[in-house]
């Protein structure tokens, strides 16, 4: 799978790298609409999951691991979304990250083998955030 950084996300990446704007944590979210990310997307393009037990997860800056190399990689510990009720039926087509304060989209990725359907109590979706630059 490969992620996509929409135009908003590109602008923020540059603004943070060049100290034009103060960086923000990102918030990991699942989307329930059947979206393929595009360069023109904004956060509102994505319909966030609403199944019981779902909650967006804030990824704090200090917890990222960055390893310089070819490519240089930033990775984060696996994040787990867990259903807390049965008799649900909601498809999850991918994930997206938004900025914690501005709410602007950072990047998004469609699950290549999705959608993952949440049905039962205890069903889980696991995402290991990773982004590379070369």
């Amino acid at each position: 799978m490969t992620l996509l950084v929409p135009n908003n996300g590109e602008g923020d990446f540059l603004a943070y790298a060049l100290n034009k704007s103060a960086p923000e944590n990102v918030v990991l979210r699942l989307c329930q609409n059947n979206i393929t990310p595009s360069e023109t997307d904004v956060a509102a393009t994505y319909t966030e999951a609403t199944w019981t037990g779902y909650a967006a997860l804030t990824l704090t800056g200090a917890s990222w691991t960055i390893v310089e190399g070819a490519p240089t990689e930033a990775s984060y510990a696996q994040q787990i979304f867990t259903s807390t009720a049965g008799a649900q039926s909601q498809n999850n087509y991918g994930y997206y990250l938004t900025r914690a304060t501005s709410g602007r989209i950072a990047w998004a990725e469609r699950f290549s083998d999705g959608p993952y359907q949440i049905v039962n109590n205890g069903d889980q979706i696991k995402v290991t955030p990773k982004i590379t630059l070369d």
Partner: protein
Amino acid sequence: MTGIRKGMWVKYKGKLGIANSIDGDTAEVHLVDERGLTTLVIPAAAVASLTQAAFADIPKPRRPDAGLARKLGYEVI
């Protein structure tokens, strides 16, 4: 050089889609419906067969403002 890039709204055989990934001369194109939702995955479309969509082709729920569209090369009439 066609200028097709990942995430671009494209036309493929007259249908609207998004270039989800590009690998050399081929691209995985995700066709979309009038709401911008994915309907069909074309796993290996020839990049040469793709053209950038026009602003008006982009489904309304996912259409950016005209100024941004122009900056990204979409024809705005």
